[in-house]
Every structure is written in C-alpha cells, then in structure tokens.
C-alpha cells in the first residue's frame, strides 16, 4: 500500500510518543535504582559515590524481614484459597445452566468493575466491627474478593475448552466428582490455573487499596509499608526509601516475568475477556 507523506509523518509522531513515554518510564525507574545506591547526590547527574549500605539500613529500619513474611503469608493464602474456591466455581459456571446464573455471573463481575477504594471502605467497616480489621486474616479476606472472582471469570473459558466427553468417560469408569476433578480436570486445566494464579499473585503483591484499608501495624504488606515510608519521607534518608522501593520493584517484576511466560501482557488488564 503506498503511503502518503502525511501518513508517514503521523506514524513517526506516534512512534516518537511511544519512545518518549518509554524513555521517561525507564528514567523514572532508573533514578530510583541509582538513588538507592547513591551516597550523596546534589546538583550532579550521578551521585558522588555508590554504596549498598542503604539496603542494610532499609532492611533494619523498615523491619523488612517482618514485612516480607507478612507479604508472603498474605499472597500465599490468597493464591491458594482463590484457586480452591475459584476453579470449582468456574467449572460449575462453565458446565451447568441453572436458574439465576446471570445473577451469579453479575456478582462475580461486580468486584472487578467497582474500584477497590469504593467497596474497600464499607468492607473495612464490616471487618473492623467483626474485629478482623487490622489482622492478617482481615487482610487476606479483603484481598480474596477481587482474586476469587478474577480466578473464576478467567477459568470459565479454560473449562469450556475441555471436551465434556473426557469427563463423561471418567464418569462411566466410576469416578466421583472429587476424583474426576483431581485426576482429570486439574491436569487438563493446569495451564489455565497456573496463569490465573500467577496473575492473582502479581495483583495481590501490588494491591494497595484493600490492604491499606484493612491492615494494622503488624499486617502490612510490602506495598503498604512502602506507602507509609514515602508518606513519612523526611524522617528517613530518601535513599533508604528508594532501597525499599527497589526491593518492592524486584519482588513484583520477578513474578511478572514468570507470569508473562504463561499469559499475554494484555490479559493483565483485560481481566476475564478471553
């Protein structure tokens, strides 16, 4: 197709914008990284010297070991429980037509459409009144809402891809629902389960609002602790906050890279579309 000069210029400006956006993104992440290793940085392009000592400071000052343990506990529990609840629910939704299915679909969809800040406030109120607010269990319960529904909606198309005759064959040979699940469905669904749980993992590490609204002093995850560190900037050296930011960034991006081996980047935002 011959392209006019106008079309070429247009394409060039679009690519320039993409380049400009990525350049700034890289510079933004880069400046955090450089600052976290910098000694003194004032009116120069780069710090005067480099030192790893801010990481040691952040490790002790922000009680990073405790925070990391809480983060692992929360994320681990959310991933396992949302898999245990979400996958069977998706199976039922994919295989059965029952009265009220549309309504069930709607209540699974709502938590993914309503932003966490909106439903988080009433949720935190209820959790605090049942004395679960501020505890690890409260944080896990809050984080499970978007995760359970996310897994369910993501898994429905995966279940639909499986030939129902495979299940019928298992039934003919006398397998119960539980046995069929463990021996037939889970192995067949493994790519889907892995993809959805990895996405839940990445989303839970980065889930700020719900954790922020429900966490107490001892149940903060990494992202909430980072928020409080940035919020109280000035109390501690900026480099140690950036060191903590780098720890958070590395944690998130490692899992993102693992997740991207199984899913397409667009799936991270399109939720349950495919």
């Amino acid at each position, binding site marked *: 197709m011959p392209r006019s000069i106008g079309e070429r210029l247009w394409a060039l400006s679009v690519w320039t914008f993409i380049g400009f956006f990525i350049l700034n993104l890289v510079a933004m992440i880069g400046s955090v990284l450089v600052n976290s290793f910098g000694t003194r940085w004032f009116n120069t392009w780069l710090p005067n010297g480099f030192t790893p000592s801010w990481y040691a400071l952040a490790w002790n000052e922000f009680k990073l070991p405790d925070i990391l343990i809480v983060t692992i506990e929360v994320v681990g529990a959310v991933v396992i429980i949302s898999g245990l609840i979400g996958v069977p629910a998706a199976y039922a939704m994919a295989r059965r037509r029952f009265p009220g299915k549309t309504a069930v679909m709607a209540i699974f969809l709502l938590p993914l459409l309503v932003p966490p800040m909106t439903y988080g406030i009433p949720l935190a109120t*209820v959790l605090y009144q049942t004395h679960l607010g501020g505890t690890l269990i409260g944080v896990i319960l809050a984080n499970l809402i978007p995760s359970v529904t996310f897994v369910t909606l993501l898994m429905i198309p995966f279940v639909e891809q499986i030939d129902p005759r495979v299940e019928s064959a298992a039934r003919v040979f006398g397998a119960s629902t539980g046995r069929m699940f463990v021996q037939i469905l889970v192995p067949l669904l493994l790519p889907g389960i892995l993809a959805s749980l990895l996405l839940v993992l990445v989303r839970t590490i980065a889930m700020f609002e719900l954790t922020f609204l429900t966490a107490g002093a001892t149940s903060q995850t990494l992202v909430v602790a980072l928020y409080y560190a940035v919020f109280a900037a000035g109390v501690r050296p900026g480099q140690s906050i950036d060191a903590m930011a780098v720890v958070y960034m590395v944690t998130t991006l490692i899992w993102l890279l693992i997740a991207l081996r199984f899913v397409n980047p667009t799936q991270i935002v399109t939720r349950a579309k495919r």
Partner: protein
Amino acid sequence: MSAANLTLRQRLHERGLDGVTLLVVPGVLFVLALFIYPSIYGLLLSFEPKEGGVFGNYIKFFSEPFLYTTITKTLVIAIPATAINMILSVPVAMRVRLMKHPRLLTTILVIPITLGTVMVAEGMLTYLGPRGWLNRTLMFFALVDEPVRLIHNYWGVMLSLVITGFPFTFLLTLSYITGIDPSLEQAGAMLGARARMRFWRIILPLLAPGLAITLALSFVAAFTVYPSAVLLGAPAGPTRVISIAAYTAAFEEYDYSMASAVAMLMAAVQVIVVAFLLSLRGLFFHGPASSGKG
C-alpha cells in the same frame, strides 16, 4: 417419562442443579459475605449518622465546602486524565496492531500497571523533583531557567494518572482493536478509502462499544485515585480527592457512618458517569459492564 415419575434429584438435575452446580456455592457465598453484604451494610450505615436525621451525613457533606468540593476536585483530575489516556491510546493501538511482534512493547507498558501507583509515585518524586533528571535535562538544554514544579501539585497527580492509566487504556483498546476483523478494513482499502477514512468510517464505529467500556473503566480507576493524590499532590488543597475525604472520615475521625456516606456518593458519581458513557452508544442495557454499582 412424565415429571411425576422423576425423583427430586432427577428433577433438580433437569433444571441444572446437581452436585457440580453446588461447586459454585462457596464462591457465591464468599462474594455475598464480603462484597454484597458490606455494600448494603455501608449503604444502611450511611443513613445512621452520629448526629442529625436519616440524611444527616449527606446534608453535612453537601453543606461543607471542604467535603463537597472533593467531588469537583476529583472530576477535574479524573476527566482530563481519562480523556488524555484515551486520545493517546487509540492512535498508538492503531499503530501497534500492525506490528508483527508487539509483545516486547506490551510487556514494557504493563510494567507501570504492575508496579502500581505507590511505586510510580516514589519514582516520580525522585525523577521529577527539583533536582531530578528531568529538571536537570530541561535546564541543561536551557529550556527552562529554574526547575519546573511537577510534584506536590495538580500536575503530579495528573502525570501519575497518565503513567499508570495510559498503559491500561492502551492495552484494553489494543485488545478491542485486534478483535476487529482485518478483512473489513482491507475491503475498505480496496474500494479506495485512505487510512484516515478507513479509521473514521470502519474502525471507529466497530470500536465504539469497546471504547465506551474502556472509558468507563479508566474513569472509575482515575476517579478513585488515592496514593498519588496524597504523595504527589496537595492533599489539603487542589488534589483533596473524594477518596481522601472517605479515608479521613473512616480512619482519622472514626466516623464510619460518614465514611460510608462518602463511599456511597463516590459510587453514585461513578454510576452516573458510567451510565452516561455507556448510554452514548445505546449500550446501556446490554453489557454486564453497565451495572457498575458499589
């Protein structure tokens, strides 16, 4: 076989209710207990204010400028941010759709979404600060005389909403654009339509329902901005968004009733805007996305 001869179990099975259907129960109970119940509870609680009548909280909200201006302040941030992200996303998605290997680009763009607003805020504080690389570059090329103030004001929040919001809007738009059958556009090209005409006459009408949903999702995300409004904005002044009002009521004044009222108002504004966006395309009664209730 007549219905009378069937056992209860068989009759239930005919309607789709059996052991397999029960697997959905834990999930439904979970969402009912932790999403639907708190929402209804919050709605009712908002009508039981600490002082005043049934509508005490709402009357208080709309009589105190410090509270009711949060709605307009949030809209003044969220609407332009959503518009900018949308306007940037469509041309970029149109271009990226032609790429043979868009995966590297989409991977890079998914990073700010994954990192989240808190991390982006910390990055911006370092990068855009008066001694950050951006201001150094601008001054190096003598584009400005003194550092440009891009943080702790309106622009800080706006920029952070573009940094996390543009990739989100773009990836969503891309997934809708790649869903359009390319042969439709080829047919247009064969009949002599140039790129611009193909976009306005073929792509855009097909894309419109998807764009309406994308706009709605981007808007609600921007409307509930919290961490960047606090960390990058002026949370006592022009970026005192509605989330801050809700948070302050709940966790600083311990007035959960008022906090619930603010959350309900937040949801109400979202529903109104989303309903408006979706009604533009006559979509209102179709997609499940139209039921954006909080």
